[in-house]
């Protein structure tokens, strides 16, 4: 390692007292400088590498940099060899890269390893490429180094690539460059014609032909994105805004060419190229805003993707992708791992958290031979699963197919811009045709001269202002929501969200945190909680974990605790578990999940009651939705008692419990059939179908990957209050989009008669075009300002 600059020696991270010196989460005063041992380790690692400057470089402790565990993935197998195997490189998706300091830290920490040849992280795509000298097996160690710094890592997946390798975006950017080049150079020649009133006829002709020389290829190449979309629309028998733009640009170019041939006073090549440049600029910004959201979604999904462990006939274990597993294979599922495929339990007993597949808030027990659904999480000991259906035909694939169908239905949604285009395109072209015929046959000028006012009326009707009216609002609204932690993936999502009039909410994991919490009990004997927690520390059952989490003092796990499946924990004379296991009466079982603890055969059993608590902002969010005029319904797969309790505390009158995924989808269908526009909020695999069918849908960040794929919006920020805010922003955006369209149309009432009467010169046309676009953009900016308030 090279010597470190002296000023890096002051490695002490300085942060205000009361916050963890590494990750910045609040720490109780006097509890030390770090919130957990992991953060202390990460800080030691960072200052040990001499990178204490990281704490000064980073702008804010946005959280999410606590040390993380490496996902169960074979990183070495993904390393790509080069130079005959002497070197390897690996692409990783690094979540939590939030600022330049993070990039610096990750790159420098890897470069500190003398075998690492190159480490380059991209802040925009979250992609880290590291190249090292030596065997592929180093991959694991390098990935774990990044994980120990506090960044979640996952292999760079095909989905990440799709979200970032944006070929279409690149083509747009290239088209924008070409159009900007053409517009500026043509404008240079046009201005010479406009101001050069004493210019000779020959010189003017030269200027016209030079402009044509530049403009013709530019219009042909840079207009491709519009022509392609217009042709697609015509094939589908529809009319869209791109058709209006394409026709306007092509007609202007053709008319200018005819003016150049007969050496008329003006050509309009500048208008055609400037129009393309302006619209492409809007298109590029629109795409960039949505690309960020798509990438963030792919990032969340990549963190969930994992491999499975297959047990071979010879007893060895082998890690591989879930898609390669055939029915009949035996898989080993580690504690805490999510089942990737449907299958039956081969032996023993299993405790699975099925909240994601059915919505039940309490884990379910499975006996040997029982069918276990993909998506459930193993809470007990490691288990062996015999796969019954491969990835392509299992229950998850069925849901995915359903999503695809719903997605196609959603693709047919007609946006407000296209609805405006349906009216606008025929009217404008009829006016242009009438102008041409009027001048040619009515007034009796040559057909070339009649073409000028006709095309002028086409270009001043501002397909520009109209075409930019909705994208400008979209860019601003999507950007404002992104900053609030709401990811908007679909182009029409905001429009659909604004129109929703009924909200259907899932309970487990959506309105509630999905983790049970211990209820306070003043009658509980002193010391009972500590003693019970000592037993519970050795179990993965959610209630045991909640008990340990609720214990105010550090828990010292009791040793040699025996777990009796389906009953509880045994440690000498002490027992912790169900009522019958601890010899308590069954009468209390109805009041929600309860654990019993008995210190000995003579001691009285002590009850610990739990509840799946509502998210702290759930009531506020429900109230806000109601104030926005949305009717609120609760639709849950959980037991009636738990759903009724949640509904009562949120004041929701309409609720339904024990709903299967089909029930949920059916309810959404019924609402749609009744002419309502439902907004679905859910997080589980059991919600995915309903999410896809709903008019608009949202999922909290912790949701399953299928739910995220199905939903229009992902609420990345913790909490639900972002949803009413998103509805408000969507409605404001919708209002601004309508205003913009109305404004662009109103503009035409003045501009069109002038053009039809032949008063419009290219100079006036470009002024009209620029001013209407500017007005529309300024109006769109208001949406972002109000949204961030």
């Amino acid at each position: 390692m090279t010597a470190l600059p002296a000023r890096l020696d002051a490695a002490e991270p300085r942060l205000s007292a009361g916050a963890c010196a590494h990750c910045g989460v609040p720490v109780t005063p006097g509890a030390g400088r770090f919130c957990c041992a992991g953060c202390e380790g990460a800080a030691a690692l960072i200052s040990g590498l001499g990178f204490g400057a990281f704490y000064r470089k980073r702008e804010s402790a946005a959280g999410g940099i606590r040390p993380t565990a490496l996902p169960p993935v074979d990183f070495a197998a993904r390393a790509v060899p080069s130079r005959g195997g002497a070197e390897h490189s690996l692409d990783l998706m690094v979540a939590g890269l939030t600022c330049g300091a993070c990039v610096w830290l990750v790159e420098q920490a890897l470069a500190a390893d003398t075998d690492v040849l190159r480490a380059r992280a991209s802040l925009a795509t979250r992609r880290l490429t590291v190249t090292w000298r030596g065997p592929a097996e180093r991959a694991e160690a390098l990935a774990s180094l990044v994980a120990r710094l506090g960044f979640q890592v996952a292999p760079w997946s095909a989905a990440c690539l799709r979200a970032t390798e944006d070929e279409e975006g690149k083509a747009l950017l290239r088209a924008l460059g070409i159009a900007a080049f053409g517009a500026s150079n043509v404008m240079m020649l046009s201005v010479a014609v406009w101001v050069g009133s004493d210019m000779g006829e020959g010189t003017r002709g030269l200027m016209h032909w030079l402009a044509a020389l530049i403009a013709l290829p530019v219009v042909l190449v840079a207009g491709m994105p519009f022509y392609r979309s217009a042709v697609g629309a015509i094939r589908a028998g529809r009319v869209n805004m791109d058709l209006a733009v394409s026709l306007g640009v092509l007609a202007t170019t053709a008319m200018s060419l005819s003016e150049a041939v007969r050496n008329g006073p003006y050509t309009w090549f500048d208008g055609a190229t400037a129009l393309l440049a302006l619209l492409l600029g809007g298109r590029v910004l629109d795409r960039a805003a949505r690309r960020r959201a798509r990438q963030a979604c792919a990032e969340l999904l990549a963190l969930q993707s994992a491999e499975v462990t297959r047990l071979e006939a010879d007893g060895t274990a082998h890690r591989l992708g879930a898609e390669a597993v055939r029915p009949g294979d035996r898989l080993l599922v580690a504690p805490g791992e999510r089942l990737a495929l449907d299958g039956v339990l081969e032996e023993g007993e299993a405790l699975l958290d099925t909240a994601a597949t059915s919505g039940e808030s309490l884990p379910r027990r499975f006996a040997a031979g029982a069918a276990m659904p993909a998506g459930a999480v193993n809470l007990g000991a490691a288990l062996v699963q015999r796969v019954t259906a491969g990835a392509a035909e299992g229950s998850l694939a069925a849901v995915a197919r359903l999503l695809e169908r719903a997605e196609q239905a959603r693709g047919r949604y007609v946006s407000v811009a296209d609805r405006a285009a349906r009216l606008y395109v025929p009217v404008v072209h009829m006016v242009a045709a009438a102008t041409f015929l009027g001048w040619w046959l009515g007034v009796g000028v040559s057909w070339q001269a009649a073409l000028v006012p006709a095309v002028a009326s086409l270009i001043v009707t501002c397909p520009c202002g109209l075409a930019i009216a909705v994208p400008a609002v979209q860019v601003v609204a999507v950007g404002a929501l992104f900053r609030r932690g709401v990811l908007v993936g679909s182009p029409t999502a905001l429009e659909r969200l604004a129109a929703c009039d009924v909200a259907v909410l899932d309970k487990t994991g959506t309105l509630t945190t999905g983790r049970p919490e211990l209820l306070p009990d003043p009658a509980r004997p002193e010391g009972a909680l500590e003693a019970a927690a000592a037993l519970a520390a050795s179990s993965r059952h959610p209630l045991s974990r909640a008990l340990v989490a609720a214990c105010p003092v550090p828990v010292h796990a009791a040793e040699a605790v025996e777990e009796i499946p389906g009953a509880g924990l045994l440690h000498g004379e002490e027992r912790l578990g169900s009522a019958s296991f601890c010899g308590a009466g069954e009468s209390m079982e109805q009041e929600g999940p309860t654990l019993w603890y008995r210190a000995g055969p003579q001691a009285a059993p002590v009850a610990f009651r739990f509840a799946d608590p509502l998210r702290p902002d759930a009531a506020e969010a429900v109230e806000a939705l109601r104030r926005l005029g949305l009717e609120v319904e609760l639709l849950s797969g959980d037991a009636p008692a738990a759903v009724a309790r949640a509904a009562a505390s949120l004041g929701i009158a309409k609720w339904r419990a024990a709903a299967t995924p089909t029930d949920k989808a059916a309810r959404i269908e019924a609402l749609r059939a009744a002419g309502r526009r439902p907004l679905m909020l859910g997080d589980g695999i059991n919600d995915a179908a309903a999410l896809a069918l709903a008019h608009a849908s949202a999922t909290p960040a912790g949701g399953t990957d299928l739910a995220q794929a199905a939903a229009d919006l992902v609420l990345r920020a913790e909490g639900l209050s972002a949803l009413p805010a998103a509805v408000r922003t969507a409605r404001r955006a919708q209002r601004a989009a309508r205003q913009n369209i109305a404004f662009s149309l109103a503009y035409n009432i003045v501009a069109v008669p002038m053009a039809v009467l032949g008063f419009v010169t290219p100079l006036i046309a470009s002024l009209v075009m620029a001013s209407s676009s500017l007005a529309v953009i300024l109006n769109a900016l208001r949406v972002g300002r109000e949204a961030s308030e």
Partner: protein
Amino acid sequence: MNALALLVPLALGLGTLALLFFGWTLGNGQYDDPEGAASRILFDDTKENS
């Protein structure tokens, strides 16, 4: 007219050069990570093992 014969091709040539340069930067992936590049200029002690 003589001035035009010189200046117009010159202006167009420079413009084309700029366009080609833009195409090169685009193909080179220089717009892939605008935020990262913005903060990268602040790093002072980048070293690469070779």
